[in-house]
């Protein structure tokens, strides 16, 4: 008993760093799959090279580490530790992402916020597009007739886009003012349930 303990102490102090160095490639190999977030985290917790641990503790930690490796490995790789796949390489199962946009109930605050972003994007597009249109159209259309035709057919579009962009601009401005008020004066912060 004592001799085996002494042997373990010897073995652990020598082999401990190298065994973990051996384990680490196995751990990070399936890092292409999203499983090994857990493995990476566990490495941070167990620092085997810190000299403050006694060798016995280090052996225990090493054993736990190895067990945990298999446990966490079997979470992403189907039934590896259950004795089925002894020789086969572990199946890397990619976990699905839980539904977010299709499922989440639209809230008032979130809707206002995303509308602000959409209106901002729309206004930017309108700004740039009108610059392109008015200043660059001359150099694109090579004849006067095509220039005239373009403006004839898109005349109605100007009115529509002007009104829509007026709407977007006003909404964007109001949201900006609300944001400023909420940040500086704490006015109108939505109540929590």
């Amino acid at each position, binding site marked *: 008993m004592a001799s085996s303990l002494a042997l373990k102490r010897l073995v652990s102090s020598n082999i401990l760093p190298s065994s973990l160095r051996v384990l680490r490639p196995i751990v990070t190999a399936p890092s292409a799959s*999203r499983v090994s*977030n*857990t493995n990476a*985290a566990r490495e941070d917790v167990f620092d085997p090279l810190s000299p403050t641990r006694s060798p016995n503790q280090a052996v225990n930690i090493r054993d736990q580490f190895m067990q945990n490796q298999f446990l966490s490995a079997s*979470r*992403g790789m*189907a*039934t590896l530790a259950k004795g089925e796949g002894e020789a086969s390489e572990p199946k890397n*199962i990619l*976990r*699905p*992402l*839980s*539904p*977010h*946009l299709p*499922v*989440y*109930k639209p*809230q008032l*605050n*979130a809707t206002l*916020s*995303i509308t602000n*972003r959409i209106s901002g994007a729309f206004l930017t597009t309108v700004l740039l597009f009108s610059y392109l249109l008015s200043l660059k159209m001359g150099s694109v259309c090579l004849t006067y007739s095509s220039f005239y035709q373009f403006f004839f057919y898109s005349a109605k579009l100007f009115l529509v886009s002007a009104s829509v962009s007026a709407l977007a601009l006003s909404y964007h401005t109001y949201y900006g003012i609300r*944001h400023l008020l*909420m*940040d500086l004066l704490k006015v109108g*912060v*939505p109540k*929590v*349930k």
Partner: protein
Amino acid sequence: MATNLIRRAINIKSRVSSSTVYTEAPASRMVLDRPYASEVEAQKVEPKATGGSNMKTFQIYRWNPENPSKPQLQDFKIDLKECGPMVLDALIKIKNEMDPTLTFRRSCREGICGSCAMNIDGCNGLACLTKIESGASETTITPLPHMFVIKDLVVDMTNFYNQYKSIEPWLKRKNPPPAAGKEIPQSRKDRAKLDGMYECILCACCSTSCPSYWWNPESYLGPAALLHANRWISDSRDEYTKERLDAINDEFKLYRCHTILNCARACPKGLNPGKQIQHIKQLQLTAGA
């Protein structure tokens, strides 16, 4: 069992003593014109909804890593009259009676541990605190949004916990306490500054309701971690305030928050992480970092 025997004996006796119109039938044969109900009829349980049952359908997200295929929504019908009021009661009833493979996390059943956080009818919340809507509409239960699913309603929370760890949620001091060996004194006003932050149970309802956290889960810290960061920044006993502010003064860690404020709506304990994040942003301005 004894009462059944007695009942059977009484049946036989009464039939024998009654008129001879009835043919002699053994106790086990079901004859409809018998005056007393046999024990077989008495033991029959009506499975369908009779007067006085309130059936509700639950659509629950299922995915099994042992047979990986597309995740499905499975329907379960529950009689609300035989079930507790909370969604967690319904889940436990389904697991006990209908499908033991339904997997979900739960522990305290009273809203203090934060294990049973999931998305119920589109809103994040704790299953043990969310009442079942008494109507005929279906309730949809899915796991916390935009997290990797381990099985059914259990998600991988490693990233969330690592982000919490990364803000160093413990007291850090440069000087020893003013009265050596005793606790660091704190006035009531300073202690009141921590109200609304220390109650956080790390259920992850807020972080997983934030669309900004959905699109940047690894770089944005999320409302829960930032709430705790503010808790340590506002703690008067902690002396590393400037370093804490500098650590999160990052384009991604803090400023992915666009005050969408889904977090405040989702918190089952009634906290407001959005307000705390605004507080941090103001401190960043005044601290001149």
